[in-house]
């Protein structure tokens, strides 16, 4: 049964993630008074990219060719272990530190690929990405640790059940940690105010700069992996920090209800992200560490509130 579930999640996350991205773009368009591309536009873009040829530079090495597979593969590996609609007992990649460090492995190879291009853009994109990733890890790890202290377990698949049993009056640390995690979500996924995913100016790019050199199927993998990562972060955010609404049994009715609730929560998170993107300006790069340290301090306060 668990293997079936696991496989279904491996299929569901890549299937849904371009849709979430399309939803965020649609909401942004509406807030700008336009109608914007349809929600399924990212699917069409990916499909087109898979059919295009590739242009590869002779300066690139096997790292450049292998990185898209590694980056996408790690997001798949995590897809099975984040709670989407139900918590099932054992997910080998569900430990919170494995979650953080597998994502870090993907970022590692993405940054290497950015450096492999030999052009200036990839290099400084990697530099900024590693700075942001290194500084956001503190807040990310401590936020998840705060949630695990409250839940008494540190496997992502088990935590929602334990967390939903806690009365609301004791959940202040969880919400502080949720704020810290949300800041990490924005910084790890190249959203405002840390990075602009739709910019054309190379000097303002972080994530885009590293994939500037990719084309064809590899570009499709990189962009798809980025949206997978976004969906995984959103799933952790809405299901760990707002843990109500997960199915407690594997009956189809409960599962479909949980799926509906999850989609609703994901839409709310997408709306929050799009709202921030439409109302805030992107930070200067050297103001971003202040934001990331704020995330760290929030989660440290959450932990202290729990244990003191």
């Amino acid at each position, binding site marked *: 049964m668990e293997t079936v579930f696991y496989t279904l999640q491996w299929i569901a996350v890549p299937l849904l993630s371009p849709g979430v991205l399309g939803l965020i773009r*649609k909401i942004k*368009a*509406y807030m*700008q*008074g*336009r*109608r*914007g*591309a*349809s929600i399924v*536009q990212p699917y*069409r*873009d990916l*499909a*087109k990219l898979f*059919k*295009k*040829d*590739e*242009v590869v530079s002779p300066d690139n090495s096997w790292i450049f060719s292998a990185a898209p597979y590694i980056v996408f593969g790690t997001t798949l590996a995590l897809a099975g272990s984040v709670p989407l609609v139900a918590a099932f007992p054992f997910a080998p990649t569900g430990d919170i530190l494995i979650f953080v460090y597998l994502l870090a492995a993907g970022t590692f190879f993405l940054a290497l690929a950015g450096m492999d291009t030999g052009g200036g853009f990839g290099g400084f994109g990697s530099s900024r990405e590693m700075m942001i990733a290194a500084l956001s890890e503190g807040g990310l790890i401590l936020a998840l640790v705060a949630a695990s202290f409250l839940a008494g377990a540190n496997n992502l698949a088990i935590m929602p059940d334990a967390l939903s049993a806690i009365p609301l009056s004791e959940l202040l640390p969880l919400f502080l940690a949720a704020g810290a995690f949300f800041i990490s979500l924005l910084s790890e996924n190249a959203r405002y105010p840390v990075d602009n995913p739709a*910019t*054309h*100016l*190379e000097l303002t*790019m972080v994530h*885009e700069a590293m994939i*500037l*050199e*990719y*084309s*064809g199927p590899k*570009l499709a993998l990189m962009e798809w992996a980025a949206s997978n990562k976004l969906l995984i972060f959103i799933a952790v955010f809405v299901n760990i920090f707002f843990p109500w609404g997960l199915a407690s049994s594997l009956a189809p009715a409960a599962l479909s209800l949980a799926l509906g609730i999850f989609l609703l929560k994901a839409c709310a998170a997408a709306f929050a992200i799009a709202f921030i993107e439409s109302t805030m300006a992107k930070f200067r790069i050297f103001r971003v560490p202040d934001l990331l340290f704020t995330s760290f301090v929030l989660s440290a306060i959450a932990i202290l509130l729990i244990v003191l």
Partner: protein
Amino acid sequence: MPRSAFVARDKEFEILGERLRETVFSSLKGSLAIREVAAGSSNAEELELTALGNAYYDIERFGIRFVASPRHADALFVSGPVSRNMAEPLRRTYEATPDPKIVVAIGDGAIDGGIFKGSYAIAGGVKDVIPVDIEIPGDPPSPQAVITAMLTVAERLGQKRESTNT
């Protein structure tokens, strides 16, 4: 979906846009990525292309978007008479774009030099530097002209895709 604040004001543009959406959907599976190259232009054409993305025209609805790198692009929209210094970069941009691709010379200057035709400072029109598939006259062309030309772009690129797929 709740109603957006968007109100379609330009009826003629909307009709063209509807046709463009259908063409992009049928020929290109609904996705077209454009990279603009300013090869010594006055930027009037760039302003028009940027304006196509604003809330009034909103070209994104039709599945068309502008990308930052030629590696990501399907179509190159080149504007301006190609100045001597931009000839080589333009060639490199063309080589950096993966197949199937299509080149559009937008604006009078790009077609054959426009008011700078014959000048010592330019290398000629875009077709003297890289192969051009479609030309859009005008200095700058109006959004309607651009959209009409994009219909041809979509069809032509769709044909190229068919031929490379078989």
